């Protein structure tokens, strides 16, 4: 066994073995998962983190309308930017655990209603001020203000009372939530001096890099925050994000060495890139997914038999192969996959079944008029092709599904959440609770399938306050089954993050929480 372990360690040091592979191999040898993670940390870090240099990332998804205000971050570039200059109370680790950052410790009352966070001493903002519990309170308060238009409003509005007591932050929730620290790891909630109330777009935080120059939609230049509290993070002297929205230019920039890493490698060319010497392709199973959504309260989709017929008439493997170029995994009509903690992997995979679909369709008593599925190129990459594949397999099962092409312009205004059946996408969330609360709770603002189920709602609230993991997992499993069999969500595929990294970059690890190592690639990698 020793030899085998040595071989694995050697391979990992050379960068020839990914974190996932390392953990898989070592646990297979009988090493406990916890030990394997720790071991990986040691082995990968032993891979001499080099200091200095300039790391550049070419990133898809930035516009000249972007701002540095973390509350407004929504597309990839602002999100990654936020994660580079900002520091949250805690981070979610790639394994789904918690890493304490500005908070040193998080404890809750037994009913998970009152949370106490101990603020780390001596953490400094880029402007030289020390991070205090008051700054954290001010930050959270700003996001509760509707005028701040914060993407984290849904997270902070459940906090009934927040106060600073010396070096402690005490949050009282209106209803129990055992996942609170995970939610506070959200990138919108970067701690700002005095909450950033005076100038939210100042770009001053406590993160490993400070913003040196910011040109919206063009680039952001960061320099090392000299007094950053964690010496394990922030290896390069300077990091840069270049906004390169064009696929070809982004790929060419990576190949020619103008940038060191890029996100969103086109699945069609990832195979070709694998042949290039200076570039490696990193494929990370994530939580984002592509969906077709039906409004459960509008005819003909108010009939569960018809919804079932449609769910059974989609060829999931074909979607993964043709739309994602194999870089993804099949969905099972609920928005959770193995990348989430407490995922129940015993729920059977739904497959294409024309006979059963036809049976459900007949049972629904639908009049045979065309069922219109609306799609646009911008609904998700390949959305129109996916809709056409879906229509073809549904027609083969005798379901009169028809695709209507919509323009990208105004799609999220005029089609999504308006028309009863359309293509859409979701990014993942940190924990199951957050995903379900955002879009599947009866009262959710973004309940885009108009799914209303009392049992489901009750389970969600119960699971939220549940500190016993086994019970919590059982609740989530039941919810997944309800959504899978009764919901308005058709989820054919989860898309992987496909990223290109030059071989002179060290320290890369796969992180299912978000693209480019959950936005931390620039601050965790080094230039070898």
């Amino acid at each position, binding site marked *: 066994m020793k030899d085998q372990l040595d071989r694995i360690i050697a391979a990992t040091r050379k960068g020839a073995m990914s974190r996932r592979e390392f953990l898989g191999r070592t646990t297979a040898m009988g090493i406990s998962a916890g030990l394997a993670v720790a071991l990986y940390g040691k082995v990968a870090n032993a891979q001499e983190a080099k200091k200095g240099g300039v790391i550049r990332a070419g990133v898809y998804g930035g516009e*000249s309308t972007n701002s540095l205000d973390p509350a407004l971050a929504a597309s990839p570039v602002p999100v990654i930017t936020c994660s580079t200059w900002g520091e949250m109370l805690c981070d979610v680790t790639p394994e789904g655990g918690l890493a304490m950052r500005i908070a040193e410790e998080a404890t809750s009352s037994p009913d998970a209603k009152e949370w106490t966070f101990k603020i780390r001493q001596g953490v400094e903002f880029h402007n030289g001020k020390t991070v205090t519990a008051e700054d954290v309170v001010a930050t959270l308060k700003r996001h509760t203000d509707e005028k701040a238009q914060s993407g984290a409003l849904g997270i902070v509005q459940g906090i009934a009372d927040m106060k600073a007591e010396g070096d402690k932050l005490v949050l009282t929730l209106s209803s129990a939530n055992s996942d609170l620290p995970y939610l506070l790891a959200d990138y919108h909630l970067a701690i700002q001096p005095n909450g950033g109330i005076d100038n939210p777009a100042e770009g001053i935080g406590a993160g490993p890099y400070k913003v040196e120059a910011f040109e919206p939609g*063009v680039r952001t230049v960061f320099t090392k925050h000299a007094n950053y509290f964690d010496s394990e993070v922030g290896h390069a002297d300077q990091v840069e994000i270049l906004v*390169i929205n*064009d696929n070809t*230019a982004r790929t060419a920039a990576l190949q*020619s060495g103008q940038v060191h890493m890029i996100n969103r490698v086109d699945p069609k060319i990832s195979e070709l890139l694998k042949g290039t010497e200076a570039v490696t392709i990193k494929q990370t199973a994530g939580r984002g997914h592509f969906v077709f959504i039906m409004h459960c309260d509008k005819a003909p989709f108010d009939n569960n038999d018809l919804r079932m017929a449609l769910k059974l008439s989609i060829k999931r493997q074909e979607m993964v192969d043709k739309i994602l170029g194999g870089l993804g995994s099949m969905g099972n009509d609920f928005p959770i996959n193995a990348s989430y903690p407490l995922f129940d992997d015993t729920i059977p995979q739904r497959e294409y079944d024309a006979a059963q679909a036809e049976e459900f369709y007949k049972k629904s008593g639908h009049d045979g008029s065309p069922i219109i599925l609306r799609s646009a190129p911008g609904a998700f990459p390949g959305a129109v092709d996916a809709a056409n594949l879906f229509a073809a397999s549904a027609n083969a099962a005798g379901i009169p599904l028809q695709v209507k092409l919509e323009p990208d312009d*105004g799609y999220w205004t005029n089609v999504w959440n308006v028309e009863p059946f359309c293509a859409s996408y979701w990014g993942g969330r940190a924990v199951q609770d957050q995903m379900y609360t955002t879009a599947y709770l009866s009262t959710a*603002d973004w309940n885009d399938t108009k799914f209303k189920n009392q049992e489901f709602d009750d389970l969600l609230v119960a699971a939220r306050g549940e500190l016993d993991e086994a019970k919590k997992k059982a609740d989530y499993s039941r919810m997944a089954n309800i959504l899978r069999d009764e919901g308005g969500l058709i989820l054919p595929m989860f898309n992987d993050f496909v990223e290109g990294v030059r071989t002179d970059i060290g320290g890369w690890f796969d992180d299912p929480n978000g693209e480019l190592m959950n936005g931390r690639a620039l601050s965790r990698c080094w230039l070898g």
Partner: protein
Amino acid sequence: MHPLLKLVIQRLALGFLLLLVVSAVIFLGVEALPGDTAQAILGQSATPQALANLREQMGLNDPPLTRYFDWLGGVMTGDLGKSLTNGADIAQAIGQRLGNTLFLAACAAVISVPLALILGLIAARYAGKWPDKVISAITLTTISLPEFVAAYFVIYLLTQVIPLFQPVAMVFPGMSFGAKLHAVALPVIVLVMVVLAHMMRMTRAAILNVMQSAYIETAELKGVRPMQIIWRHAFPNAIAPIVSVVVLNLAYLVVGVVVVEVVFGYNALGQFLVDHVTKRDLPVVQAVGLVFAGVYIMLNILADVIAIFANPRLRHPK
């Protein structure tokens, strides 16, 4: 007052009126777009409450006419307002982007205009012979390539096969002039390929047209050398149509190169405009639209004036 000066003033006044009309048309066009700014900013994640807040905050609940005149008043006093989406000062943001646009256009023009004229003169001199055919074939090929295809082609050739340049052509304040030139090399090559043929062929056609005249025959009979005839006698009389085509292409280089900007990630005004149209950032769209219209109108006035200067009949009206 000199009739020419009067004419220029007349043109400028007319141009100003035209700009006003254009501003109204742009406003109407943007109003007619589906969806509003608030919805576009919040996108898929819009909650009804957030939408209502944002609409109120941005004054979108005022009637369109009020918003139009508020904006026009601001423009007159040099205040373009703040971007609705990120609160940046519009005049400042446009200023920097416009600088980049003009830099790229100037680089492309400095190469393409003289090159097109020289090639046009050569083609006219050897009309129907092989130099003419070669020049026509090459320029027609480059103009027939869609810009993005040409762009991908030069990216492949000049960054992958022969790694001379960088595929991403961003320029930043603080870069040296040489570094800027190096950065924009690829887009300039593509733009030259795109605009060359049009100007070259107009030069050739205009000169050949003049070459039919009796006085050219006289010059030939006098024994003047062909190139001399073209340069001294034909070219000055062909200037008017050539200038108008050159100006049209210059205007294109300023306002019409968004595809090239996107492919090379060049941070200029076209990409800026498209981003703000997508987000329904009305004040920015209007401001950029106005800048583009202004450029078009100014360049056309310039073309008119040059044509008049070049033509004695227009220069000395009876």
